[in-house]
């Protein structure tokens, strides 16, 4: 080497991921060469817990990471950790979560009048089961999800509450790492769970459980995972970030192309990625999972505020004007738009101020989150004690 410059080797971006199907845009960006096309060397690290992802981003061991949609919000608000400025310019996946219960419990819900695939009817059947158990003095039922700031947590709670079930008192809600879900259901340690794919499909394929509801049936179509990073890193590396966003955006579109499904499943199934049978991944991909912005997978500001409302509703944080503004600045779709040079038809930086939620109740108005929460009869947010 004669040149003292290192410009010949591409800059490295260190990315953490959890072995779930919606890590696909990151994995594909590397494996199909989309990152290299953008002059970026993507170094992927598989992690076993969301807590590890959070810590490694915080101390700068990762530049970016596959994160639960609520994680950068919790970071900005300093819930359960020190406040740290985090942004998410793009979403990595939407859908793919489902509520799965044991086969016998599924039959019981149907016997109690639950209509298959009908969220409220099944929820009311569950309520009748819980009421009966209470009378007979039986133990509380246990449902599992994956992290306090996961959509899974909020989706379960939203469905319970819409069905008249108080998730704080009528049952037990615990965290189980995704790879242990199926085993826990089989061992009877939990009665049901809400988790991302491929674990619902694996439970079904192994005849351990039955999918009760897809998350898309109970929840507004917001992002499930996002690409999160420290704001300081994004600001100091804006060109590099733009290159990465273009690469991951291209990878997401590739992953959504039906012609690529078999190859996608094959790549994801590898030992250093998800390390599960590609057939499980293929069945999971049938369950309405999407990766690309062309299919509406975006990190919109209203999605962040909807998640913030869940955090307030369930007492993880308190509502304040200051918090609202921190949340509003967390998702940065403008960075993706600038990087790709393509604007969506409706400017995604515009807020959709109010939307109707799938299971009824008052419409969600993001300019009046307190009002929305006050309209919810089941909630545990502290702020409401002082509400007029």
């Amino acid at each position, binding site marked *: 080497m004669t040149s003292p410059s290192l410009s010949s080797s591409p800059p490295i971006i260190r990315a953490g991921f959890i072995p779930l199907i919606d890590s696909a845009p990151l994995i594909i960006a590397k494996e199909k060469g989309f990152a290299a096309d953008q002059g970026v060397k993507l170094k992927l690290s598989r992690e076993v*817990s969301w807590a*590890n992802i*959070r810590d490694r981003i915080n*101390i700068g*061991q990762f530049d970016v990471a596959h994160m639960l949609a609520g994680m950068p919000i919790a970071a900005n608000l300093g819930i359960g950790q020190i406040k740290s400025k985090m942004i998410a310019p793009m979403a990595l996946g939407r859908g793919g979560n489902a509520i799965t219960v044991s086969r016998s419990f599924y039959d019981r819900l149907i016997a109690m009048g639950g209509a298959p695939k009908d969220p409220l009817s099944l929820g009311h059947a569950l309520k009748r089961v819980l009421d009966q158990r209470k009378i007979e003095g039986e133990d509380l039922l246990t449902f599992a999800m994956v992290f306090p700031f996961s959509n899974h947590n909020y989706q379960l709670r939203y469905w319970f509450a819409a069905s008249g079930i108080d998730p704080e008192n009528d049952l037990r809600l*615990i965290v189980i*790492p995704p790879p242990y879900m199926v085993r826990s259901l089989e061992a009877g340690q939990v009665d049901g769970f809400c988790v991302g794919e491929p674990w619902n499909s694996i439970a079904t394929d192994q005849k351990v459980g039955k999918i009760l509801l897809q998350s898309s049936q109970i929840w507004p179509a917001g992002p499930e995972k996002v690409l999160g990073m420290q704001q300081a890193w994004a600001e100091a590396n804006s060109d590099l970030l733009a290159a990465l966003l273009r690469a991951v955006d291209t990878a997401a579109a590739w992953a959504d192309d039906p012609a690529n499904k078999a190859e996608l499943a094959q790549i994801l199934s590898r030992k250093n990625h998800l390390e599960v049978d590609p057939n499980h991944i293929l069945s999971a991909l049938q369950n309405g999972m999407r990766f690309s912005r062309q299919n509406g997978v975006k990190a919109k500001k209203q999605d962040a505020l909807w998640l913030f409302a869940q955090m307030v509703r369930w007492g993880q944080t308190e509502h304040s004007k200051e918090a609202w503004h921190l949340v509003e600045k967390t998702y940065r779709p403008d960075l993706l738009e600038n990087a790709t040079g393509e604007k969506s038809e409706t400017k995604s930086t515009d807020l959709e101020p109010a939307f109707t939620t799938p299971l009824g109740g008052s419409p969600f108005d993001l300019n009046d989150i307190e009002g929305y929460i006050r309209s919810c009869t089941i909630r545990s947010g502290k702020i409401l004690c002082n509400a007029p």
Partner: protein
Amino acid sequence: MDKDLKILIIDENPVRAAILNEGLDGTKHLRVEWISDTNNLLERIAVLDPDVVLIDLENPNRDVLEQMFQVSREVMRPIAMFVDQSDSAMITASVDAGVSAYIVDGLKKERIKPILDMTISRFNAFSRLRKELDETKEQLEERKVIDRAKAILMQQKKIDENEAYTLLRRNAMNKGKKISEIATSIVTAAELLN
């Protein structure tokens, strides 16, 4: 006089837990407990009521703890080390060593620091041990395959052991490969041809 500190180690690896336990045990005013599996974790933590919980970073049950400490009314709610970021060097050192700590709020830093220092150094010592063990195992495997390749060469080419080894080494040098790699291909070829 401060009361004794209760330390809980959650680690599926009994050897590493023993190494850490041994290190902490010498410290005054410490009580150390170890659990290897996380069945009924909440109930067990409630009974132990630890001031500090140490868990290795390869354990997916970290996320279980996060939830437990956030919502539980039954335990004292230790919090992840990150809540007090004043000592970021220590935090980085512990992540590098592969361990994470949850600490009950309000504990004095001077009481925590020696515990974390000890934990980090014991975790690093364990990693070194494991690395040495892996290397030894690998060397043993290499030695075995080289011996088999030598035997094949001796038999096929009617040469003695020294000549067989020289042949292997020269081939490896010419091809820019390790002797064990050349040996592996000879053994594989012999298995295919027999």
